[in-house]
């Protein structure tokens, strides 16, 4: 069996499952946030009763993150609603906005706060829940009705997915990031190439990536239609979890005779920086072919491209330079934001590098990745052409229907910020290869 088949067999008390089986699984964690939380809680109460209690108050993780820094009255009302619910239900893991408990983007906070565990089944009311697959667990996005069902029962039906294997042999060059890796694979199989399937990543080059880079890869499985992305837990996973006090979990690896829908093998050293052009994440082309495209904005943030590793990459390129176009920096979480003050390159903190380069820095949240209310930081309002480290480039995704979004790695987004055109980061190879201090 594959990793995902083993996890689903385990959580449905079976010895064996195969792709296509419809099974009921026990859920380890249900994650929800401010946009889908109210609907989920309303459905839970509507079906189980106004005074019903959730199935397990320690297994629901509530992380408001989408519409936080806005004056929108409905958005504020939704935060009040989920806060009231969390207090009534004594939800143990509630990261309340406007208090010291606030974290930021849910998928990154789940990892940082130790909620991700190899072998677990995690559902979340957000399509990028697949990010947590980086920890060797089954993690998938669902709607409010399914989430309301889990809230009352701790169970959900799933169809066991087939897996597609992406094997990266050798080592990635210094200028390649997880974002390039996942965009390349989406481009290869197509925007709907993994519909109903699991995207399993492995090989020596993947083992060489840190947890944040692995999260970037699994994060975008949904952009190929994937039910989940997954990377087997290893020593890198173990160390990350130990630092967060997580020591008990089950590690699964795919069997050597596991059956895959298809296997794609890559020479990691040959991967090049790529960009997904409007209006599909599968519309992928090497960055070097797009140097004629003028961009008017660079945006570095979100669950996909707003982690500490992403900002170290951007800072390496931006250090000692001035941006030519408006450049927005949005840390995913408070923890990432704190690292802006403590991580230095050549004696300058990340924050100093961004400020000296002329970037605008916003508070941690999903911000303009999905447009959001009119007053959202970094939202487009006209015909902006954005090079962005986010995950979707659909029509109007970052706000305005007239703006265009090109998806790229933080290296490419930062390099393009300096030139005003889509720029292959290999232009700045000597800067990329500088190490952080300490």
């Amino acid at each position, binding site marked *: 069996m594959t990793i995902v088949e083993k996890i689903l067999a385990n959580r449905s008390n079976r010895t064996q499952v195969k792709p296509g089986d*419809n099974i009921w699984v026990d859920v380890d964690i249900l994650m929800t946030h401010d*946009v*889908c939380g*109210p*609907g989920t809680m*309303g*459905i839970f109460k*509507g*079906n*189980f009763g106004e005074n019903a209690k959730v199935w397990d108050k320690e297994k629901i993780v509530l992380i408001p993150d*989408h*519409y936080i820094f806005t004056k*929108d009255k*409905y*958005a504020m009302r*939704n935060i009040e*609603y989920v806060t009231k619910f969390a207090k009534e239900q004594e939800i143990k893991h509630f990261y309340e906005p406007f208090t010291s408990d606030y974290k930021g983007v849910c998928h990154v906070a789940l990892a940082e706060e130790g909620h991700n565990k190899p072998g677990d089944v995690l559902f*979340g*009311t*957000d*399509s990028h*829940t697949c990010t947590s697959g980086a920890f060797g667990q089954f993690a998938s*996005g*669902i*709607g*409010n*009705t*399914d989430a309301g*069902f889990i809230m*009352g*029962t701790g169970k959900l*039906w799933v169809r066991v997915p087939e897996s597609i294997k992406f094997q990266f042999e050798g080592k990635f060059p210094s200028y390649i990031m997880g974002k390039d890796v996942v965009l390349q694979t989406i481009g290869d199989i197509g*925007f*709907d190439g993994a*519909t*109903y399937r699991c995207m399993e990543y492995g090989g020596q080059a993947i083992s060489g990536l840190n947890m944040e880079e692995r999260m970037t890869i699994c994060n975008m499985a*949904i952009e190929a*239609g994937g*039910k989940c992305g997954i990377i087997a837990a290893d020593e890198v996973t173990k160390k990350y979890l130990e630092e967060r006090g997580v020591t008990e979990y089950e590690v699964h690896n795919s069997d050597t005779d596991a059956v895959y829908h298809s296997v794609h093998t890559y020479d990691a050293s040959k991967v090049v920086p790529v960009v997904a052009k409007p209006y*599909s994440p599968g519309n992928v082309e090497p960055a070097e072919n797009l140097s004629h495209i003028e961009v008017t904005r660079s945006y570095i943030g979100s669950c996909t491209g707003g982690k500490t590793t992403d900002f170290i990459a951007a800072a390496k390129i931006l250090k000692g330079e001035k941006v030519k176009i408006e450049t927005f920096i949005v840390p995913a979480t408070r923890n990432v934001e704190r690292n802006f003050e403590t991580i230095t390159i050549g004696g300058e903190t990340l924050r100093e590098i961004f400020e000296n380069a002329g970037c605008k820095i916003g508070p941690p949240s999903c911000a303009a990745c*999905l*447009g*959001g*209310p*009119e007053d959202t930081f970094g939202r487009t309002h006209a015909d902006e052409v954005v090079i962005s480290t986010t995950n*979707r480039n*659909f*029509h*109007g*995704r970052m*706000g305005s*229907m007239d703006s265009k979004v090109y998806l790229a790695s933080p290296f490419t987004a930062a390099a393009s910020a300096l030139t005003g055109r889509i720029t292959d980061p290999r232009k700045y190879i000597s800067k990329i290869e500088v190490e952080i201090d300490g």
Partner: protein
Amino acid sequence: MDKIRGKAYVVGDNIDTDQIIPAIHLVYRTDLEEEAKNYGKYAMSGMDPKTIEVPFIQGDRYESDYTIMISGKNFGCGSSREHAPLSLDKAGIKAVVAESYARIFYRNSVDGGFLIPYETKDRLVDEIKTGDEIEISGNILKNITTNKEYILGELGDIEGIITAGGIFNYAVQNGFITK
């Protein structure tokens, strides 16, 4: 399964959830009718205006003139927002007929009891025009306007959930949970 009859609204491939309901509108409560009707008003409002021949929703109305949506491949891709099938439901859509679906949209449509996601092997976006009168009965789709018939895919395992009206009713009927 009851017959569904009404006018068709035809869209292309890869209709994503930001086109079905843009994120700016996700602030309305889905469980309060007075707010939830806004999801009907803004349904399909994220489509590129340049590609639209006839608006899905006329003016300031909360419901559409159309009952059945016809699409190509990968309908409902993108976000997990259940507001997407809910918006179509509020606007009056009873069924979508597409060549394929993104899985979360498909699940949400069925488990939430919003609409029936039929699959077709035919390229119906080239066969049916917006405004054509359509009838779906069993797995037969009839275009009354052109007098042509097409065979739809079987609903399979999910038919029970659709007939029950969603996952909660299905679970109650099968003794899985008690209300």
